[in-house]
């Protein structure tokens, strides 16, 4: 499932990330890689997704979230 379909409070592990070199380098440098644990803090309509990963609060545009697939639950 995609990252944006998670609900507030859900925890998940990133399984795959798609995109061009530019996007991959940006998203990994902010701490999101396959295997990262994430927790959703806020998921409001028409707002970026707010999640917590590697001790960091990250705001992420919804469209970009579509390229990030996750497995719910903590591995």
């Amino acid at each position: 499932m995609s990252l944006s379909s998670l609900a507030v409070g859900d925890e998940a592990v990133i399984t795959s990330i798609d995109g061009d070199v530019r996007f991959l380098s940006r998203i990994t440098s902010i701490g999101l890689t396959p295997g990262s644990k994430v927790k959703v803090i806020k998921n409001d309509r028409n707002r970026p997704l707010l999640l917590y990963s590697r001790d960091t609060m990250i705001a992420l545009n919804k469209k970009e979230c579509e390229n990030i697939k996750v497995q719910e639950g903590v591995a």
Partner: protein
Amino acid sequence: MIDGKQVIALLGQPNSGKSTLFNGLTGLKQHVGNWPGKTVEKKEGSFVRNGKEYIVADLPGSYSLSANSDEEMITRDYIASGKADAVCILADSSQLERSLFMLSDYAGIDVPCFLVLNLADVAENRGKKINVEALKKHLSIPVVSLSAPDTKKYDELYKCMEEALTKKTVLDASKLEAEYEKIEGYSELKAMIPDGVIKGYSKTWLAAKAIEGDKAVKEAVSQRLAFDDKARFIQIISKSEKGTLATSKCKYDWINSLISEAVVNNESVQPFGKFDKAITHKVWGKPLVILIVIGGLLGSFIPALPFMGIGMGIAALIPPLQSGLLEAGVPNFVAGLICNVLIQSVCYIIQMLGFVFGVTLVFGMLEEIGVMARISYVFDNTMGKLGLQGKSVMPCLVSFGCTMGGAAGARVIDNWGQKVLTIAIAWAVPCGAAWAIIPMLSSNFFGAGALLIIVIILLVMLLHMFVTAKIFGKMLVKKEDRYGIIMELPPYHKPKVGALMRYALGRSKDTFFRVVKVIIPICAIFWLLSYSASGVAEGTILYKVGTFIEPVTKVFGLNWKLFTAYVASSVGKEGAVGVLSALYANTGTIFGAVAGTNAANDMQALITAIPKPEALAFIFAVTFNVPCVVAVAATYQETHSAKWTAIISAYYTVGSLLLAFIAYHIGMLIW
């Protein structure tokens, strides 16, 4: 080395406290310019320690050392240029796992470096203990734990710096290399890379970047390879699809192995407190942001007031000085030049500096505390429609008070194109001076209809902003910069008021020298145009030109008097009504009206003399005209581009006349 002085380059992700450290180290001794041929801001400063002067170069903020943006390429080229004697890498102690990414991306570069674990206070509050000695041992570079706001504790930092410079400490990348070796093709790739492809960058670093599909590295390496090797090199790279994911896994694994030994009690999470809940609220978030910006605008006036007082005080001296000069036998022309151009310009500039100082200080503080990042989140979708980041909402809101403040506030936007576009859009927002004259003019001419006019002005403003974004967006904001927000909401930081104050002062000083070049010539030109030896309006060049082109300006609903007042409004909107009054009812001179030294305005004379459609045209022309000479100067200062300042000014002149044309002809249909 620059001029025999040793150079320290600061490298860190956004929010690592880099600019705070830069301000803390250099204080007033800094200057801002552009990187040669680029639109990225270049900040350099210096400090003296034990009688020796050091240069500090603030490398552009970026999250990594990839080759995806101008900022990152400038950083890489700077390191390769050999100018930096040591690179100071910053990380946020409270979130080491992510913020050490820059260090891991630096690993493999042979330029000496040292690590600053910033925001130690935040980490401590979250119950994190970092074993600095263990990190030193693993990395074999000097490491220091620091709370950037605390200059008193800089001693440790200086020691680290000196150690890095004298011992030329190079980051030990062997353990990261061991991780890289697990990637398929890495070892073969590394073996193919010849010596010294890019100065300072080791084969380890180049091979990892090649795996990531880094274009610049790919080009530099393949240029040096024989035909067969080149083909093989490119073959390996193209096979390693999504290599960035593989190398970043190595980097985070390496970081985790560092942290597991050096950080204890790594359990706590960043609190999502009451303020965060309120500002990110679905309904209340936006109103709260608007309140914060209004509060910030009012707050900016507090440090600005003394400056404004001084500026106005000097302005008040102009009339007695002028009459004094005339009595002493100084020719009218010379006295006017001294009083109305030189002194008047200085008054404008001092008042402007006060406000630039206030805005830089207050909004710089909001940025440093971490509020600006939240504003970005709240307005991401709205401003995204204009091709801008969420932060851009701030300059637009500030412009309701003062366009110059909006332009100065745009400096928190880290992308140059988006910064220029934001300022261009913010110009469409009628400023405080427009709000002072437009409702007054409207109600005098149209009674209760004034309310409707104000509503229409607000709607036109929104449309104007949208159209401006469409017209300039394509030129200013590259398509690849238009992707959505990927940003950290940093933990709240204590702002370093002292350093910020010094920074704002330095900034104001810098502004002074730049804007003098803009304001004095514009004031001089306008004064020459409005000068007449006899004192009557008919003797001015404005009159001659105005009456000559009147057939054209009439199309826009502006006779020569209205057009003169319109021209005056691009110097300062406050003066527009005064100029009308001077021309229609002889209440003073044109320049006196702009400078605010004329007698009271005669509104009654205006109402009887100006037909309603022309008044309406005038209202729209003035509202959407170039805001004022000071806003032009501030725009030049922030964009560092005379070209774009001129383009935006010309665009607003044409746009306002077009709106006047529409208003005039609609008015003709009504009345």
